[in-house]
């Protein structure tokens, strides 16, 4: 297993953000982490990256504990998020050069150009990052995320700011790269159609708790719905209904 999460708990000042979450992800699998805002997806990813300390439970990545082997684990994975940027005042190639240095990428120039070509932004290599469009910027982030040939890729809403055409291109490219290289991907998105298209398996989170898990088609069937979006809406509304009932009983 690439990721083994067991009974993960995170509490912030008494509020439970992640509640006894357990899951695994195998090699070459794309696992979708779904849920409404505040469901605990980003917190879970950040605990996997070791920048938030769990309140309880365990996280093992590549068979090692994130608490004790953080640096070794981070060397083998990478991360991209729509909410994180690369320095805008550096040129595209300079940003990749800096991260290639951090990850110790041999022949960084060739590697960076190869990735820029793959994402069709090689013509922008000398342009300042701040001058890129959202789509170009997202593709640059993905170039950065693939620089160290990661075995695990954590993508937090990577297509959030893209138009449907670019988002589609990015998804197809990601799927292709993932298949060719056998990368494990943990993917969060609010776009259910995207999740259906790209993920092998999904986990629904609501108020930090796991509400459903399985391949998208199985989850859809289990909830007697037509699409993941309908499942999403049902889980969120039923969850709220349950809480309202619990609240009125108290």
């Amino acid at each position, binding site marked *: 297993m690439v990721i083994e999460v067991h009974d993960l708990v995170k509490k912030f000042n008494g509020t439970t953000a992640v509640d006894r979450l357990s899951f695994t992800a195998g090699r070459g699998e794309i696992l979708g982490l779904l849920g409404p805002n505040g469901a605990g997806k980003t917190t879970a990813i950040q605990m996997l990256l070791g920048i*938030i300390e769990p309140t309880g439970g365990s996280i093992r990545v590549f068979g090692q504990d994130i608490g004790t082997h953080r*640096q070794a684990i981070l060397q083998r994975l990478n991360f991209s*998020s729509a*909410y994180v940027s690369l*320095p805008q005042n550096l040129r595209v190639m300079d940003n990749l050069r800096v*991260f290639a*240095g951090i990850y110790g990428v041999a022949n960084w120039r060739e590697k960076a150009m190869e990735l820029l070509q793959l994402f069709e932004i090689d013509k922008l290599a000398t342009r300042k990052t701040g001058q890129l469009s959202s789509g170009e910027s997202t593709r640059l982030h993905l170039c950065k995320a693939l620089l160290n040939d990661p075995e695990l890729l954590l993508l937090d809403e990577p297509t959030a700011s893209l138009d449907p055409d670019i988002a589609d291109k990015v998804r197809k490219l990601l799927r292709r790269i993932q298949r060719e290289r056998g990368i494990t991907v943990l993917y969060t998105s609010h776009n259910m159609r995207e999740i259906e298209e790209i993920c092998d398996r999904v986990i629904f989170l609501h108020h930090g708790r796991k509400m459903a898990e399985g391949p998208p088609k199985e989850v859809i069937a289990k909830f007697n719905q037509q699409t993941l979006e309908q499942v999403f809406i049902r889980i969120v509304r039923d969850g709220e209904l349950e809480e309202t009932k619990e609240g009125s009983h108290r």
Partner: protein
Amino acid sequence: MSLRRINALLLRYLLLYRQSWTRIMEIFFWPVMDLLVWGFLTAYLLKIGSNNVPALITFLIGSMIFWDLLYRAQQSVTISFLEDVWARNLLNIFVAPVTIGEFLTATFALGVIKVSVNGLVLALLAWALYAFNIFQLGFTLIPFVLSLMLMGWAMGMVTVALIMRWGHAAEALAWGIPFLVQPLSAVFYPVSVLPGWLQPISWTMPCTYVFEGMRQVLATGIVPWHMFWWSLGLNVIYLIAAAVFFRYMFAVVRKKGLLAKLGME
């Protein structure tokens, strides 16, 4: 500790200057303005005071230069961190296999470069405009500057720890903390000028020994080495305390999820 990663981080900060003339100008603008003000004030005091003001008053220029070096060393740590906060690049750095030690070392190295360049430019300007030769301090210049840098780094670590903990609201500390220290550390006047109850506090500051030492060298030509050793000893204590504080705050920040918040806001 990986030299490769430290180099890569240092490169990230240096590249900012390669592509921005405004940033380069910003490094020199304030120090040069300060030098002009203090230099002309010194010239004026010498002119109106004639026999009443000793020639030693030129130490004001030396104090200003030394103060700027301390300030630059602190700024190299804090502003480097803030550059990544402002660029929303902080998470990219901290989810890479970069240790806190490597990150801080890169900012210290940037401090050495900034302090060297800044010090040289100010020394040349002070010599050209006011005939003040800071190199008359001789070899003592090196340990004195080193001592100021060490204190600047310690202050920088504390400032970054506070910004991590209290976020954007604490950003002003990056510029404010050195000026909290300034009145107590006898930069432009001797410790004896301070009220009696403040003097022991002043002697707990490593930089106080540097400023007092510099004035002694200029006045007597004799190097008060004990001042340097006191300064160095206190700096070691300050650096260890700052590192412990930084580690503690980093653990708090990880527990509260504040680094992630700061990196995505």
